[in-house]
């Protein structure tokens, strides 16, 4: 059995009076891609935000690398080795590409290996090297997504959390992003992926969880869920048939 990198055990999360997550448990094994899928508002982003410390979990525990993580401050969680690329990328639009990458490597551990990380980022994303002195806001949507992922990688994470990386991108960029996620995983990265593009996400995921109105309703290997009649009907629908033709 491989190492358990992240373990979320029975957490409850609320926004004010509205409970968003109910007794949610997931596991992320080291070196795997784990996908969280489900409809809009199912609680996928809420779960990522709770892991990265932006939301407060009233109940349950979160264990990362064998140590409890629940309700630490976001900046301390980054220190522990989790980088979260939030929905909508949230780049610093008025800062240059290079400045964004510098801030990605802000924590001392990452700062020490900045040059090496930067070289790796530019190898993965040559377009960023060409635009390193441009403002991040001037990049195209796909380039911005690349920068957001590159910025997170600069922090040398043990776990990379991506929230809707394909959202709003052209089909070509969507494919590029999914290929990139697979490539990163081949280079030993552990990835927790939230996606609306369920078909693609399940194809690359080793393990997947289906969230529905704040609860985990199904889990299994990505390929298993892809074949599951219920999942296909509820979340993939006609799209998969059309694509397979």
């Amino acid at each position, binding site marked *: 059995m491989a190492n358990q990198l992240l373990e979320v055990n029975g957490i409850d999360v609320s926004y004010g009076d509205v409970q968003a997550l109910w007794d949610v448990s997931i596991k992320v094994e080291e070196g795997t891609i784990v996908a969280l899928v489900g409809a809009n508002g199912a609680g996928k982003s809420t779960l990522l935000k709770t892991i990265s410390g*932006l939301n407060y979990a009233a109940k349950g525990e979160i264990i990362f690398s064998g140590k409890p993580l629940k309700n630490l401050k976001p900046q301390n969680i980054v*220190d522990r080795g989790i980088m979260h690329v939030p929905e909508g990328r949230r780049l*610093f639009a008025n*800062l240059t590409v290079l400045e964004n990458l510098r801030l990605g490597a*802000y924590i001392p551990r*990452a700062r020490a290996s900045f040059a090496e990380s930067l070289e790796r980022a530019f190898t993965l994303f040559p377009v960023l090297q060409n635009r390193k002195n441009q403002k991040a806001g001037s990049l195209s949507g796909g380039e911005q997504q690349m920068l957001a992922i590159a*910025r997170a990688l600069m922090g040398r994470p043990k776990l990379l959390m991506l929230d809707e990386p394909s959202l709003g991108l052209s089909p070509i960029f969507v494919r590029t992003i999914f290929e990139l996620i697979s490539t990163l995983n081949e280079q030993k990265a552990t990835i927790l992926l939230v996606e609306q593009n369920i078909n693609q996400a399940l194809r690359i995921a080793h393990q997947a969880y289906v969230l529905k109105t704040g609860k985990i309703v199904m889990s299994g290997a990505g390929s298993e869920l892809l074949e599951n009649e219920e999942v296909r009907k509820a979340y993939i629908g006609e799209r998969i048939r059309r694509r397979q033709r």
Partner: protein
Amino acid sequence: MSFRLIVQVLVNGVLFGTTYGIAAVGLSLIFGTMRIIFLAQGAFIIFFAYISYWLLTLLGIDPYLSLLIVIPVSLLLGSAFYYGIFKEAAAIEDKNISLLLAVGLMYLVENIMLVVWSPDPRSVVTPYTTLVFRPWGIVVPFTRLTALFIAILAAVCVFIFLKRTLIGTAVRAASEDMVSTTLMGINPNWVNAVAFAIGIGLAGVAGVTLATIYPFDPSYGFVFAIKALIALALGGIGNVYGALLGGIMLGLIESLGSFYIGGGWADAISYGVFLLVLVFRPQGLFGGSIKKA
């Protein structure tokens, strides 16, 4: 009317406007990370004017030399105020609490100054207070010229800090998106404290240079805070570079207004311009677009 006279009016405007400008740069930095208008800025400017006055009258320390004491003290005081007063409020989504704290701090400082220094105006008198240069017949008081250089030097130092250092870059990032900044592993308290330190530090610089030029009393702080706020609006709220230009522009507006329309009108004109800018160009005169809710 002579060309020389117009030049004189413009020179006066620039000379005084830069002091508004650095006060506005401080406001802009604090607004950037904290999302509040730090109304106590003006009270601190006058507070440091008094400190400079005390250092001169009690210890015989020259006002310009006193900057060597005032700048480090004000930087420390700024971060201490953040950690002591604003830290908890900064974590709350409702920014009105931080704003009310700033108002409370303003009145506290103002009233302490009233007790300690009385409401009577004080002035810093040095051998060079009345020293005046007359290049091409234009009157340039030495203290105003020095204030200009010190203000520009202070602004340049702040801009270099923001542009060239990692923590400066983090402050700029935080003024764009604080949540995203914490996801980089950056402690929001740290960037807020840095913004406060620089904001109060600039109040220190503005206070000392102001003291060399004008007599001042505790109530002048609020007027100065409003002037800095107008400069901030002219430059675009949240635009640090624009704030400096906004200050210079306000100086010019006041100087031209009191020359052409009459001295009594200077303040009314600047408040009028303030409202006009907010109504018609809320992004400021130099900014691009503004985010609409």
